[in-house]
């Protein structure tokens, strides 16, 4: 294992310290917890948004704490859901009376830990609600799963629900919008190469030279199948096909696109993918209102990417294009 770290046990702690030092105008630490919240807590009158999950997905989630997106982020151990007490602290820190919305990626661990935190916060009289992101179409929603995984589409939920909350909407409204994004976003990814969890010390899985994994999760969990490396256009074709098969879109529909790097993929390759995505969507008569290309929801140093497509209406579009000011996404 070759990593620029000190000791595996300290990676999350030291990363959080480094983040706060780098972005003190945006975020501060909740002392004693793996929780970052906005450096300047918004006044009462704003619903607070909290997200989080295992670490290793940076800039998710703390990188999206700031005006127009999240109010707090909770960092678990690498690829492991944070514990309920941590989430509970985040909720307490960000709440200012208008309620808190938790944005959870659909993994049993995350759901259970966040739900326990809700129980704890409710006992304190804090109003907390949740949405569960499940954008990954790689996993069929069949009887043998507990639903789809949440992956990069989560960032679009942060963006849009964050804009709604910033605009002063009530918790119920913010939740409705978040659910609307979840309902309209689909993603799928692929990996060229695995990543190594520091505490594990060895790659989560091994791919042959020339072998790729399709439908990878963001924790190194295996995807749907392995196949021989194909061209960027062929891979992109396959992923877009899967996404649109799940969410058929009529010509003329407006969409947003997120080409998300998993950590070790050069921007060059992400742009090559974007070129093909844009061509495919154009062929189908779809209009791309906004494109994001970069590392938004990573898996440590995994090589690979995911494509997310969000079906827009005027409400979602306006909120997507609204300003945001966070360490990892600034938009004006």
């Amino acid at each position, binding site marked *: 294992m070759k990593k620029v770290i000190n000791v595996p046990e300290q990676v999350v702690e030291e990363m959080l310290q480094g983040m706060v030092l780098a972005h003190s105008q945006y975020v501060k630490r909740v002392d004693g917890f793996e929780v970052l919240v906005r450096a300047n807590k918004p006044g009462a009158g704003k619903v607070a948004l909290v997200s989080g999950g*295992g670490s290793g997905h940076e800039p998710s989630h703390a990188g999206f704490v700031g005006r127009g997106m999240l109010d707090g982020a909770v960092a678990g151990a690498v690829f*492991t859901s944070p*514990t309920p007490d941590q989430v509970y602290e985040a909720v307490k820190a960000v709440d200012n009376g208008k309620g808190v919305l938790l944005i959870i990626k659909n993994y049993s661990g995350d759901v259970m830990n966040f739900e326990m935190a809700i129980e704890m916060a409710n006992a304190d009289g804090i109003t907390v609600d949740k949405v569960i992101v499940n954008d990954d179409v790689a996993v069929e929603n069949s009887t*043998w799963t*507990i639903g789809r995984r949440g992956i990069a589409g989560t960032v679009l939920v942060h963006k849009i629900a964050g804009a709604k909350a910033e605009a002063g909407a009530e918790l119920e409204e913010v939740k409705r919008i978040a659910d609307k994004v979840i309902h309209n976003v689909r993603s799928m990814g692929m990996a060229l190469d695995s990543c190594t969890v520091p505490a594990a010390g060895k790659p*989560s899985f091994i791919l042959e030279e020339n072998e790729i994994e399709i439908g990878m999760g963001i924790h190194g969990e295996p995807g749907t199948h392995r196949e021989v490396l194909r061209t960027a256009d062929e891979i992109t074709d396959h992923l877009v096909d899967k996404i649109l098969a799940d969410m058929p879109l009529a010509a003329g529909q407006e969409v947003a696109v997120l080409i998300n790097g998993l950590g070790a993929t050069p921007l060059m390759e992400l742009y090559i993918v974007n070129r093909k995505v844009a061509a495919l969507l154009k062929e189908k008569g779809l209009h791309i209102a906004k494109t994001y290309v970069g590392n938004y929801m990573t898996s440590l140093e995994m090589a690979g990417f995911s494509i997310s497509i969000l079906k827009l209406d005027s409400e979602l579009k306006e909120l997507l294009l609204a300003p945001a000011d966070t360490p990892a996404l600034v938009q004006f």
Partner: protein
Amino acid sequence: MSGELYEVISAVGETIIGNRQMLTDLDAAIGDGDHGINMARGFEAVKAKLQTLETESDIGKVLKTVGMTLISSVGGAAGPLYGTAFLRAAVPSQGKTELDVETIGLMLEAAIAGIKERGKATTGEKTMLDALVPAHEAFQDGAKTGKSVIECLELACEAAQQGVEFTKTIIATKGRASYLGERSRGHQDPGATSSYIMLKALLEHLRRQ
């Protein structure tokens, strides 16, 4: 904490910590490769916490502390599940200072109910329940025929081990491994395995007494 109780928990914890790699490898094959890391981190925290409970002899109180500690240190799916299991097991053992057959039976029952509730799962879904539920049934069978704690635990361990074996034959439908579907067949479930080795550690510790 009474010496014996302290040692029981320590023995279970050391077994988990000692099997960190094995549990992680099992999880890497079908899940996300962190089960051993998570559980070991949890029982390291329990170890540290136990120092503060040296004179406590109430099993319920100790188990509650263990449960709370696991919840706030393990994370992932196993944290809430095992944490809830210990918290629930603390209820029937409240005020008890002796691990007798009846108490253990009630603890297992409560723990399983807690896991089912928290995880919205049942047996046959390739989870820790596939070790714990048969273990509990075997334990109760032994209890009904008047067997000793050790004998009952022997039956429970055997059933748990079979349960672990059984998880190899089914596909996962809960937790991260479930995304693997058919590909999870042939692999044993890490959570079922950790449940089994905890029971086994308890048995072996009691045998050594």
